[in-house]
């Protein structure tokens, strides 16, 4: 047996003997693997530590290629080892009960309020909670479509509920991302394990949302209501939207009229009947609540109150998440359900009730009610931190709870030295349906960053959680019967989305044009920069002039001379190469990196509309540019950029349905390509005007090269169907030739088709006439005018909101 194999054989054994395992470990017990982990351990040992480390890297790449980000656009992280649960059935029953309890509690707190009136629940525990939404009291009856909670194990391995997470249950998208990544990294293991699939959960959620439509309409419009780029977990929401098949809608996409909400599409309004609310209640409606006015929709709360709109979850569900309610849950379960509470919670001391927390700060986990909802491990606070926290608690004792810390279970993660234990938390999701609540089999697992970390937030290292089919109660796999109502109709898109799609097309094309142009300049510079007066040098000057006009970045060493006379001007040696490098790699507006950055940022905003292939192409593009530095071979870098953007436009051409989404993306691309070609021709012609005929022809050929049309020119010239002189060919091929996909005429024809597709006859007609003016400047003006009209008619945002109080 080799040394490597010897070590590998020991992976689980070494892990099982570590002194920092929790009292209950998910993988091993008493020094040997738990029986249900047999297959996992077998794979783990067979793979060995090196393969495990490669699995970590592979997971990281898959996530990067998928464009999945965590908070603040940091890359999302997952440990590739799944956590396999064997005791699911009992847990599932407890979770369903918890969901029913949350629903009954919501219904009473926002309805009759018997619990408060009769003192079953102390009124302060609800009314001092900022999440308690008075505006929602007495409104239309709302179902808690989703219930969620964070779970951890106690020392005996029994599950306890650490906190409910009904207001904004982050992780429904991440759970599926994690499953897909792990299933790919450990494909053999995944194939051999009979797991309960996650997808039923999403089918059920989609069906439940559609059922929630107020008028029971046949084909209700449902949207994920999001804060967009202001969302901390936009990636989770985008992924969830894709899984559910509903569009993301931000405040700007929605308008309230006659007490109802409408989605703004091109020129009409579509009724919006249900929202999956990914915006906190406090930010959902700036008219009623004091949150961020830019995120919310004025009138939304009124529409919800009156039952003209349904939300999952309904407004004010944050009150259910309060740790101050935990001590009352056993009583509430008996009161509301007539049952004993199945899943306990750790003991909690509410600071409003008792000062036990204040005197035992170092032994407890502190949970903030409302605010940022902080969870703090008291034992990890320094003395000054402890006293600062104590001041905050004493100022608002009703906003804080102390909770007995649970040891949690440990589970292995792949670390540089082999397997290391981390404490484990599971976020479970329950969704309402015609058969009551059902539970996502598994959920959004997370582990701490170090072995002793007991407070494990949403931003921690994720874990995929596996539940075997053997652990299923058998009655909860209603895949077929849950079926989505079909006939969703083509999704009309909002001005924000239309504008974003056009920006994607524009920046992709812009980056590609720049890379092509820079590539030629770099090439010419290495051959002709030190040979003034040669035709090649003249062409170099002309392309530099085009580059500085198109990028708005000037060539520094040449700033004193007129572009057309550059041949006579002294040139600092190497300044052209320096310029190319600056435009290609500099972090400047107008530079290539900037365009690619804008392309990525815009794509991230409409991730629900993008094909998943797009992310791996963009990931590659981003890596190419980030890894490039002063020593990189620029030709190679630019070549890779051009290639990646070709794949990008290929995906867009081959895998997008020709609907209005496609049309606006295409329009962005077409207008930009036309603008670039116009600029290239205008500037290079002006620059080479006074040059000898030979230099002019050299320049024209270079322009054809930049526009990727030199082969067509040669082929046509050779068989005698095109002009022999490149500068005539240039005009023919790049301007009027509708058969050349790089010509301006071709862009305008495509643009007219885009506008037809988007349903705008008037702009379609305008696009067809864009080549009518004569002269470069007039044509450029016509294109600019068209762009302004396109923006005004299709991308117009709502006016900003001004808050008035008197």
């Amino acid at each position, binding site marked *: 047996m080799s040394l490597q194999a010897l070590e590998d054989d020991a992976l689980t054994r070494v892990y099982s003997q570590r002194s920092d395992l929790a009292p209950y470990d998910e993988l091993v017990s008493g020094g040997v693997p738990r029986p249900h982990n047999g297959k996992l351990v077998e794979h783990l040992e067979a793979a060995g530590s090196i393969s495990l480390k490669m699995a970590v890297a592979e997971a990281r790449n898959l996530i990067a290629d998928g464009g999945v980000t965590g908070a603040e656009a940091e890359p999302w992280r997952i440990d590739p080892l799944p956590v396999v649960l064997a005791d699911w059935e009992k847990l599932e029953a407890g979770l369903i009960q918890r969901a029913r309890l949350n629903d009954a509690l919501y219904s009473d707190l926002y309805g009759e*309020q018997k619990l*408060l*009136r009769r*003192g079953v629940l*102390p*009124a*302060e525990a*609800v*009314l*001092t909670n900022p999440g308690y939404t*008075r*505006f929602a*009291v*007495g409104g239309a009856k709302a179902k808690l479509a989703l219930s969620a909670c964070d779970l951890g194990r106690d020392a005996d391995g029994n599950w306890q509920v650490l906190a409910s997470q009904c207001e904004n249950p982050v992780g429904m998208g991440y759970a599926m991302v994690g499953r897909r990544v792990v299933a790919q990294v450990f494909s053999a293991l995944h194939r051999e394990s009979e797991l309960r699939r996650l997808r039923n959960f999403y089918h059920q959620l989609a069906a439940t949302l559609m059922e929630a439509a107020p008028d029971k309409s046949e084909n209700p419009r449902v949207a994920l209501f999001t804060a967009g780029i202001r969302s901390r977990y936009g990636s989770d929401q985008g992924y969830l939207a894709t899984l559910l098949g509903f569009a993301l809608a931000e405040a700007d996409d929605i*308008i*309230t*009229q*006659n*007490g109802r909400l409408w989605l703004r599409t091109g020129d009409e309004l579509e009724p919006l009947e249900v929202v999956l609310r990914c915006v906190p209640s406090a930010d959902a409606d*700036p*008219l*009623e609540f*004091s949150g961020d*006015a830019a995120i919310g929709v*004025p*009138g939304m709360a*009124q529409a919800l*109150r*009156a039952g003209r709109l349904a939300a999952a979850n309904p407004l004010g569900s944050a009150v259910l998440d309060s740790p101050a309610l935990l001590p009352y849950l056993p009583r509430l379960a008996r009161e509301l359900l007539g049952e004993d509470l199945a899943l306990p919670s750790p003991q909690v001391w509410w600071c409003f009730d008792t000062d036990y927390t204040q005197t035992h700060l170092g032994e407890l986990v502190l949970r903030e009610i409302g605010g940022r909802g902080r969870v703090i491990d008291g034992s990890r606070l320094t003395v000054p931190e402890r006293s600062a926290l104590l001041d905050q608690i004493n100022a*608002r004792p*009703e906003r804080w709870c102390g909770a007995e810390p649970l040891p949690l279970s440990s589970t292995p993660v792949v670390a540089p030295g082999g397997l290391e234990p981390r404490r484990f938390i599971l976020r479970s999701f329950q969704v309402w349906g015609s058969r009551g609540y059902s539970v996502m089999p598994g959920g959004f697992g997370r582990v701490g960053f170090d072995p002793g970390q007991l407070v494990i937030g949403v931003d921690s290292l994720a874990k995929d959680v596996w539940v075997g089919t053997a652990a299923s109660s058998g009655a909860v796999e209603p895949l077929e019967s849950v079926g989505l109502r079909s006939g969703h109709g083509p999704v009309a898109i909002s001005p924000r989305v239309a504008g974003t799609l056009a920006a994607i097309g524009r920046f992709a094309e812009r980056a590609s044009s720049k890379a092509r142009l820079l590539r030629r300049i770099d090439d010419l510079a290495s051959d002709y920069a030190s040979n003034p007066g040669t035709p090649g040098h003249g062409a170099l000057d002309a392309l530099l002039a085009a580059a500085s006009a198109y990028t708005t970045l000037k060539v520094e060493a040449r700033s004193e001379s007129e572009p057309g006379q550059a041949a006579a001007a002294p040139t600092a040696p190497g300044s052209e190469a320096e310029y190319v490098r600056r435009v290609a790699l500099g972090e400047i507006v107008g530079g290539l990196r900037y365009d690619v950055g804008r392309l990525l940022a815009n794509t991230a905003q409409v991730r629900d509309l993008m094909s998943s292939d797009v992310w791996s192409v963009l990931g590659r593009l981003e890596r190419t540019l980030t890894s490039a530095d002063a020593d990189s071979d620029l030709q190679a870098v630019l070549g890779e950029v051009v290639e990646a953007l070709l794949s990008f436009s290929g995906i867009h051409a081959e895998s997008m349905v020709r609907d209005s989404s496609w049309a606006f993306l295409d329009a962005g691309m077409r207008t930009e390509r036309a603008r670039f070609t116009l600029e290239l021709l205008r500037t290079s012609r002006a620059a080479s005007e006074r040059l000898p005929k030979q230099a002019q022809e050299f320049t024209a050929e270079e322009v054809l090269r930049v526009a990727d049309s030199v082969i067509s020119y040669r082929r046509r010239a050779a068989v005698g169907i095109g002009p022999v002189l490149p500068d005539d060919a240039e005009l023919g091929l790049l301007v009027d030739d509708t058969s050349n996909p790089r010509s301006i005429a071709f862009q305008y024809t495509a643009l007219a088709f885009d506008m037809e597709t988007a349903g705008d006859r008037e702009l379609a007609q305008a696009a067809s006439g864009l080549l009518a003016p004569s002269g470069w400047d007039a044509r450029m003006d016509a294109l600019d005018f068209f762009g302004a009209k396109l923006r005004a008619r299709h991308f117009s945002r*709502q*006016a*900003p*909101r*001004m*808050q*008035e*109080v*008197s």
Partner: protein
Amino acid sequence: MRYKITHSTSYSYDAEVEGCYERACLRPRDTGTQQVLEFSITASPAVGYVETHTDVYGNYSTYLELPGGTQQIEVVSTSVVDVWGAGDDPLTATVAQAAALSDRLDPRELADFTSQSRLVRFSGGLRAYSAPVLAPDRPLAEALEELLANIHRDFDYRKGVTGVGTSVEQVLSCKEGVCQDFAHLFVGACRMAGLAARYVSGYLETDPPPGRAKLRGADATHAWASVWTGERWLDLDPTNNKNADERHITLAWGRDFDDVSPLRGIVMTEAKHSQLKVAVDVEAV
């Protein structure tokens, strides 16, 4: 007394308004000392959509949508209300006894009106100012009277120093403010002493300066405090150092101004500036 109240709020903008959403707390409620006979609300541009419900405190709350297309918005409410003064049965309880008797309230009222709220926060400064006056064993009537007098003595009435988001702590340090600030201060002092207290929004009929005719729009929205005495709610006006009487017309009550602001709105506009004008007429009829 019977009053006809006209309350107009107008905003003008330096750019066109695309649309406007308003939440109004402008319809007076019926109370033990007043009855509302008539109410209407109109707007310019004409109201596009309107809907009224009663909130958790029993106030009328109105949702309004106004179309855009103008640079000016005006909301006008008109009410006719009969008001009679509260009887002044003597208060026999001490501060501590009244606080203890707040358990006679509905638990929800008790929790809301004895706790801190966004604009009424407890602080060392507030305790220092009010605790000696509202000492537990003092007769409630005497203590409240002294608190009214102290606020009237220690704080100057001045417009423009404070705003809709001014905290009690700020009012304590700058020693000036308007009726809303004094009401918050009074309410906060009572709550810190364990008394249930609520913020009342309404109107006050005013007299013109001696020898002058009353000007149109000269009245204003007003605010005062209401304290649970153990038997009933007692309305006190710290701005004017007196009990509220038949010249006080109640619109609504809540924990603080935020719960009952007469009119707040979201206006969709590119405008950078807006100008607010409020005109109130309280006319005895």
